[in-house]
């Protein structure tokens, strides 16, 4: 596990507007970093600076030892980048575009052939190999952009919303691909789809209004949720009041929410104070009072909840 990408105090201002404000973090090989934030938080701007497209106002990014402000070309050689929306030359064929990217990257001769074949194989682009990109579906376009990014087997892979606009099968495919490639690469994916973080990321960095507001494993983030270690109970609606009575007086319970009530089943969430483990206590009380639960499980914490909490919190602080 060596550090492949090191972002140091990266800042970008556009006139009076600060898009990215002193963001620092590093990514090692083998890590898949989920880069999260609301729209307009500065995710794409950060990625554009790291990939050498935009010059930072201050700070820098070091990619495999190369400083993006001093030697952007060297950085670009180490990085595979899928820009937001996967812009591609629509008048070129898949074959033409991949061949162009390989040529620019100095992959020639037999190596070019095998690099293109490998990327086409990985992203299953055989059937559209000779089609103009402008005629392809969104899913295929995204995959062509992806193929372009992994063509030179980069050490650092930066993907700006790689699954945006894909159907569930394609999303699954792309996530598998990311997981498969993560062994020897440092991968950064930006997204606002939180399930993706759970699905592929080993770590998550959250930014809001240009500032980094959280950095940890998905489990760390989940534990910040008000729902972390809360206990969900499904039971017959006429038992809800009994349950509430039964749980009275337990200090670690901060509230009881009734989520949805149907004719034969009600969903009650028992909230824990600061994520204390309360399931055993709750379970014991239920048994004690002879309340029959249809279902009982511990909540893991909700990422979207945490996401809302920390990203809107940063706004209040300003």
């Amino acid at each position, binding site marked *: 596990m060596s550090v492949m990408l090191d972002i140091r105090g990266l800042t970008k201002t556009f006139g009076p507007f600060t898009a990215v404000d002193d963001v620092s973090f590093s990514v090692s090989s083998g890590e898949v970093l989920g880069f999260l934030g609301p729209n307009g938080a500065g995710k794409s701007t950060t990625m554009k600076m790291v990939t*050498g*497209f*935009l010059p930072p106002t201050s700070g820098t990014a070091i990619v495999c030892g190369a400083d993006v402000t001093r030697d952007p070309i060297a950085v670009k050689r180490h990085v595979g980048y899928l*820009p937001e929306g996967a*812009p591609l*030359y629509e008048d070129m064929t898949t074959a033409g575009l991949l061949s162009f990217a390989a*040529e620019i*990257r100095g992959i020639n001769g037999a190596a070019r052939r095998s690099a293109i074949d490998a990327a086409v194989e990985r992203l299953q682009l055989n059937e559209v190999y000779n089609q103009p990109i402008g005629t392809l579906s969104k899913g295929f376009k995204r995959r062509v952009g992806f193929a*372009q990014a992994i063509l030179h087997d980069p050490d650092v892979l930066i993907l700006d919303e790689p699954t945006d606009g894909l159907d569930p099968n394609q999303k699954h495919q792309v996530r598998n691909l990311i997981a498969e490639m993560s062994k020897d690469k440092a991968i950064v994916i930006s997204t606002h789809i939180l399930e993706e973080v759970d699905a592929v990321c080993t770590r998550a960095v959250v930014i809001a209004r240009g500032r980094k507001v959280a950095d940890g494993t998905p489990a760390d983030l989940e534990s910040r949720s008000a729902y972390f270690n809360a206990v969900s109970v499904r039971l017959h609606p006429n038992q809800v009041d009994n349950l509430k009575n039964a749980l009275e007086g337990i200090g670690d319970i901060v509230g009881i929410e009734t989520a949805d009530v149907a004719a034969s089943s009600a969903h009650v969430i028992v909230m824990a104070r600061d994520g204390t483990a309360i399931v055993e206590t709750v379970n014991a009380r239920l048994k004690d009072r002879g309340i029959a639960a249809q279902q009982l499980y511990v909540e893991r914490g909700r990422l979207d909840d945490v996401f809302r909490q920390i990203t809107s919190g940063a706004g209040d602080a300003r």
Partner: protein
Amino acid sequence: MSTVYAISKRELTAYFSTPLAYVFIVIFLALAGATTFYFGGFFNRGQADLQSFFSFHPWLYLFLIPAVGMRLWAEERKSGTIELLMTLPVSTTQAVIGKFLAAWIFTGIGLALTFPIWITVNYLGSPDNGVIFAGYVASFLMAGAFLSIGSFVSALTRNQVIAFVIAAAACFLFMMSGLEPVQSAFRGWASSFVIDLVASLSFLTHFDAITKGVFDLRDIIYLGSVIGVFLFANVVIVDIKKGS
């Protein structure tokens, strides 16, 4: 160098993958022929030279070249592919030169396809082929100068129509700077040095000199420097504008 080559090749292929290339070449050839024979009085002049052919080139280039140059950068920015291109290991200078060369080669292909007129004049008489060669060189350099302006303007906007109109207007000013309309605008207030300077910037003056067979190095240097200056400005503008 291989990077510039790769970019040029892609760009040139892109021209021929749209109808633009064929429209441009056909219209250029048709107009070059028509102006030579009808307005230039190719036959009536009774001289075995291509003066009547070359003298209309600046006017054809005036609206045809901006059409070739307008897409160079405006399209990249509009479609977002500039982000793809500029995150490949490519410097802005390489990208600007690569694109410019592709467009220049493309106009060169159009110019080369006027060869039947050269055959014609050689069939009808015995022209000075050195002068004709100089004419082709001048015409090609002039196309390059127009294109560098077109490429520069194209980097200023995402809108190809705006790029076309502004480039055509800028080329027109450069062409006319030696002639009365532009000169009189300066005469009232500027010193004679400024007026002479403006006049010396005229494409027409330099172009005419070369096509008459007067191969003055200064004219070549002039057109070459126009290309250099505008491509340099082009690099600066692409760097400034690419993120917006």
